[in-house]
């Protein structure tokens, strides 16, 4: 096919239209421009549709449709690449073809470049190429715009960041200025204040707003103002720098007018033409003071070191001398002054000085060792050749853990050593003297006691002989003086034993209440004599039994109580017992003995518990005593794990406190073995009348504890009001001794109102016998029926027993027996005995003696086995109550010796007293030759039982052994009339006994024997008395089998007496 050229030479056509194409009716591409052909190499001969799509106009891909659009702009898009052509479709009717004239549509330089087009590919007339710089310009502009935008954003960001930093920096500067402790002031050339910080306000006292725009000179001391202003002007004018108010000696002026020492530094800066000055102003008042103080302290320290009696040497780390003092130079005989020694070589100096020491080499070696160790060494002793002894300290000096040097301190201790040696000698001598004195005291006490026992014992024997009243009185004084003396000696002995540490505590389980009540018992008589109320209050939560040393505890209490009674003229003495659990079973048990006595002046309190000290020497004369009692108590309390102290108000009495540490005993031990207290019927109402508040308190507590309802009256009058008001009562408990009306009278009145059966029990601090007597005297006047008489101090057990009897008898309505007490009182009458108590503990001695006295016996006491043997040589005692553990010689050994000394018949009956209720004890006692056994603490009932057992045994023995021996009256007492009277009565009674025997009435038999016994003993017919006692026992026991034979013997003895009387 020929090329279509439209009348142009082919080369020109091709150059003019490098992008043309021709399509025929079949829509086949038949011709293409060279450049287009390069871009679409496969297009020639291809279907137009396969190569291009018509983007514009929207017409079907048909020849006729294209032909119709001769005025439209055609956009053709190549199907295989990015080429897009823009041009015109020109139908050629002659050839029946369509010519497309166009050129590439250039929108994107990159695409053009990708297509591989170059400027040479475009016809010159083609304006398309002119678009290229425009396109390029457009992209450049866009890039610029982007770059600018980015730059702007970046700048904005930076600006913001910068602003923030500036703000922070500003804040920092502000904070620095505001928080500075120095004043910061900025002024201009005219000295006007432009800025001042908070510290300015603080230092100068002006509010900041008052300072602004004012002249700086207002802050200056008057004399400096002119200089300053001139200086600033000169500087501004000439640059000559002579600004005053800077430097060290500068003074500011406070708003209140006082001058302030300041330190000022200046800086300047220029803003534009203007010059500004900033001053930093420091208030150096404090610094000046500190410096002055430091200077003063330094001077003092220097003076101190210079005048120190100790020699001082301070070495630097390099072993050069830093400081020393005159004493050092003196001590080591140096001629130089301390000042001239500074920087001296200490190592060399030590070598020279070392020659003065007794052991120079050891001295030098030790220095090196100590300096190497750098540890504090004190009181190292060094001897000098000249005999002086020095003591040396070494102290390393560390500043913030860095070793800087060390300090040597030397002291001349020659004199001190000498004195110490002398003192030691003196102390040894004193101690040895003290020991000797203690031993002497113990020996002397013991030596005195032996003859004292003889004095007392023999006085007792003497008192049993016929005497005139005057003689009896003298003897009584001798005996009681002897007893007092013995008490003092025992105190001293006890004390020396404690002081020498030879006293050991004997701990066992005992009833706390019994122990306290026994102590009270011992003082009851004396308290009653003085008309004092004596009472004890035991807190309910205190353990019933404790494990401790009952004897020593009682000793403390007796001592405190006897002091209290001694120093109290009226009122009461009360023991209060409380317990505080400590750890485990252990309790701290405290005892307070409170009296209403004369009290103790405060200045004497501290001497109370010291040995050989009484509150006042005059008191010693007035009240007597060794002054050892409280000292002993204090040591005993300490041995029992507690302490003792006192509180007192002179005139208002004293309270002595004592504590001990003790474990609670086993619960079963709270009741003494074999005795069980009867329970009381609950809810019974008891009227209690006592003028003493403490007694009322105690009684109320006891009643409440037993489930009874107490109603308290503090006077007989008040009691009668209650009675008359008709209030129901089951019993009344009355104090005997009351101010307006005594207990007996009140009892009578109550029974008059409530009937004779109304049970009334009387509490009396006076003895039973006296009461009985008093009652007998007034039998007609006051016919009161007493259900019980109880002694004060109030004791729980007898009171409970008495109340139990009252309430049970009410139901059985049987009469009130007072047998036990009565029997006790009369035991000595029916069973007269000579009794010796061998017991080392003073209080135990007293307890035993007191119990025996209650039974009517006047017994003697000794402190150990040896003394007991001694006493037995002097007198034939019937019974010895023998403690097992005693110093010098114990009870077992003493008994063995007694038994070995002669025939058994002439020997006493020995009853063992022992705290150790152990099974083996009884055997040990019997083996040693003892007859009976009573456990400690001593109980009255047990003691009576033991004595009665002995009486029965002796009577029985007398009957059996003494078949034919005659009996006789005490010729000094018995007149023939009396003897006749007795024999007459006795014969009647023996006859009655016969009939009682025949009628098998053992009770009557016993009672009749009892009647004869009384008379027989009174008249000294001991055999008859003993025989009757035996018969009485048999009768009471209802065992009359051996009685007929004995009755015959009684008749024989009586008739023998009768014959002797007649002859």
């Amino acid at each position, binding site marked *: 096919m020929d090329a279509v050229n439209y009348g142009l030479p082919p080369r020109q056509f091709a150059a003019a239209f490098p992008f043309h194409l021709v399509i025929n009716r079949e829509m086949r591409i038949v011709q293409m421009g060279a450049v287009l052909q390069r871009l679409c190499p496969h297009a020639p001969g291809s279907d137009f549709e396969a190569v291009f799509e018509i983007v514009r106009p929207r017409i079907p891909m048909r020849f006729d449709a294209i032909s119709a659009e001769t005025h439209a702009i055609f956009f053709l898009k190549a199907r295989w690449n990015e080429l897009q052509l823009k041009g015109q479709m020109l139908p050629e009717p002659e050839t029946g073809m369509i010519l497309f004239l166009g050129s590439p549509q250039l929108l994107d330089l990159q695409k053009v470049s990708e297509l591989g087009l*170059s400027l040479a590919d475009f016809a010159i007339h083609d304006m398309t190429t*002119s678009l290229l*710089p425009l396109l390029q310009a457009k992209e450049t502009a866009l890039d610029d715009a982007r770059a600018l935008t980015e730059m702007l954003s970046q700048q904005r960001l930076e600006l913001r960041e910068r602003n923030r930093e500036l703000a922070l920096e500003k804040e920092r500067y502000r904070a620095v200025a505001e928080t500075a402790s120095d004043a910061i002031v900025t002024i201009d050339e005219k000295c006007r204040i432009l800025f001042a910080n908070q510290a300015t306000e603080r230092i100068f006292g002006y509010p900041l707003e008052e300072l602004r725009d004012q002249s700086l000179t207002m802050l200056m001391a008057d004399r400096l103002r002119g200089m300053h202003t001139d200086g600033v002007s000169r500087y501004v004018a000439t640059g000559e720098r002579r600004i005053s108010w800077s430097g060290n000696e500068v003074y500011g002026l406070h708003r209140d007018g006082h001058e302030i020492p300041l330190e000022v530094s200046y800086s300047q800066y220029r803003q534009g033409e203007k010059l500004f000055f900033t001053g930093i102003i420091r208030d150096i008042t404090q610094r000046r003071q500190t410096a002055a103080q430091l200077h003063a302290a330094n001077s003092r320290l220097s003076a101190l070191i210079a005048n120190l009696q100790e020699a001082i040497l301070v070495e630097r780390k390099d072993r050069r001398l830093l400081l020393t003092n005159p004493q050092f130079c003196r001590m080591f005989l140096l001629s130089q002054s301390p000042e001239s020694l500074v920087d001296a070589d200490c190592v060399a100096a030590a070598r020279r000085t070392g020659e003065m020491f007794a052991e120079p080499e050891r001295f030098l070696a030790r220095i090196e060792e100590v300096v190497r160790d750098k540890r504090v060494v004190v009181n190292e002793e060094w001897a000098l050749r000249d005999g002086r002894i020095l003591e040396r300290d070494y102290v390393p000096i560390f500043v913030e853990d860095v070793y800087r040097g060390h300090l040597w301190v030397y002291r001349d201790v020659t004199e001190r050593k000498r004195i110490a040696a002398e003192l030691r000698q003196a102390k040894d001598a004193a101690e040895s003297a003290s020991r000797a004195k203690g031993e002497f005291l113990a020996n002397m006490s013991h030596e005195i006691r032996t003859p004292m026992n003889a004095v007392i014992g023999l006085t007792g024997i003497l008192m049993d002989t016929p005497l005139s009243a005057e003689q009896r009185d003298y003897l009584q004084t001798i005996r009681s003086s002897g007893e007092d003396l013995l008490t003092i000696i025992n105190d001293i002995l006890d004390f020396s034993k404690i002081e020498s540490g030879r006293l050991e505590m004997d701990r066992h389980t005992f009833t706390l209440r019994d122990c306290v009540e026994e102590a009270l018992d011992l003082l009851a008589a004396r308290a009653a004599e003085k008309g004092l109320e004596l009472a004890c209050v035991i807190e309910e939560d205190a353990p019933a039994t404790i494990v401790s040393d009952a004897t020593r505890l009682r000793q403390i209490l007796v001592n405190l109580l006897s002091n209290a009674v001694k120093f109290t003229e009226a009122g009461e003495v009360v023991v209060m017992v409380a317990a505080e659990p400590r750890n485990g079973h252990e309790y701290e048990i405290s005892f307070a003995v409170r009296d209403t006595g004369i009290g103790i002046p405060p200045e004497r309190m501290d001497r109370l518990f010291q040995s050989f000290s009484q509150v006042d020497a005059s008191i010693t004369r007035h009240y007597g005593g060794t002054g050892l009692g409280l000292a002993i108590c204090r040591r005993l309390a300490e041995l029992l794990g507690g302490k003792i102290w006192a509180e007192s108000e002179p005139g208002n009495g004293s309270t002595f406190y004592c504590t001990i540490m003790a474990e609670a005993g086993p619960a079963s031990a709270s009741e003494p073995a074999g005795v069980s207290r009867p329970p009381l019927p609950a809810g019974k109402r008891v009227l209690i009348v006592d003028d003493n508040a403490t007694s009322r308190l105690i009684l109320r507590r006891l009643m409440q504890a037993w489930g009874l309802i107490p109603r308290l009256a503090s006077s007989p009058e008040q009691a009668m009001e209650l009675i008359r008001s008709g209030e129901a009562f089951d019993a009344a408990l009355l104090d005997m001794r009351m101010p307006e009306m005594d207990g007996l009278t009140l009892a009578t009145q109550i029974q008059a109102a409530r009937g004779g059966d109304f049970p009334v029990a009387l509490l009396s601090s006076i003895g039973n016998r006296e009461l009985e007597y008093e009652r007998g005297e007034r039998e007609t006047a006051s016919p009161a029926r007493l259900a019980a008489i109880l002694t004060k101090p109030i004791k729980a057990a007898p009171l409970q027993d008495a109340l139990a009897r009252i309430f049970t008898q009410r139901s059985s309505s049987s009469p009130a027996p007072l047998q036990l007490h009565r029997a006790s009182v009369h035991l000595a009458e029916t069973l007269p005995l000579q009794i010796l108590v061998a017991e080392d503990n003073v209080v135990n001695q007293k307890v035993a003696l007191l119990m025996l006295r209650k039974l009517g016996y006047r017994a003697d006491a000794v402190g150990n086995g040896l003394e007991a043997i001694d006493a037995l040589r002097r007198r034939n005692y019937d019974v010895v109550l023998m403690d097992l553990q005693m110093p010098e010689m114990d009870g077992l050994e003493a008994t063995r010796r007694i038994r070995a000394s002669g025939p058994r018949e002439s020997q006493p009956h020995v009853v063992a007293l022992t705290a150790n209720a152990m099974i083996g004890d009884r055997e040990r006692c019997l083996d040693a030759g003892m007859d009976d056994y009573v456990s400690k603490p001593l109980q009255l009932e047990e003691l009576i039982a033991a004595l009665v057992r002995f009486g029965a045994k002796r009577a029985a023995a007398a009957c059996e052994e003494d078949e034919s021996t005659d009996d006789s009256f005490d010729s000094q007492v018995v007149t023939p009339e009396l003897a006749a009277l007795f024999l007459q009565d006795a014969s009647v009674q023996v006859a009655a006994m016969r009939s009682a025997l025949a009628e098998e009435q053992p009770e009557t038999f016993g009672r009749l024997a009892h009647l004869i016994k009384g008379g027989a003993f009174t008249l000294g017919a001991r055999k008859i008395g003993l025989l009757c006692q035996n018969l009485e026992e048999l009768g009471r026991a209802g065992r009359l089998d051996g009685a007929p034979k004995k009755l015959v013997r009684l008749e024989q003895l009586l008739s023998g007496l009768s014959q002797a009387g007649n002859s």
Partner: protein
Amino acid sequence: MYGLVNKAIEGLIRQQAGEEIWERIKAKAGVEEEFFVGMNPYPDEVTYKLVGAASEVLGLSADEILREFGEYWILYTAQEGYGHLLTMSGRDFKEFLYNLDKLHAHVGANFPSLQPPSFRCTETSDNELVLHYYSGRPGLAPMVIGLLNGLGRMLNTEVAVTHTASRARGADHDEFLVRYHARISS
């Protein structure tokens, strides 16, 4: 002159001497602009001042700087988005030189105030031609030498230029004898 030229000077100095030197040169030249807009026409004196200041600061002659700049210009424009345009301007060194005037003609047509120079080639032998350079601005001939060298580098062609006629020395226009030899690409 096109902002593009000043931009290229900035780019060259920043690349070769650093930001600080550029700021000093700018300050010395008394040029306040923070940013040159590429298509914005700037007074010619801005460019001359910059070149003068650079010469002073860097201790190089203006000719040296212009030569250096000419070489950098090719690389710079290629980087700054003119790559396609340059590519379109010729597939090899010779074609490029022959199209050089056309390129400037188009630019001049669109942005007459830029007063682009004009170029003409006279072929003397196979690998040698004479480039005729016509410009209303004096003293930029050294830059043409740099441009030719830069072009040679871009198109991988070894180029030797001799400044054969100089307007500064009284000639009608500047002429450069250009010998070129395409490197065998490796």
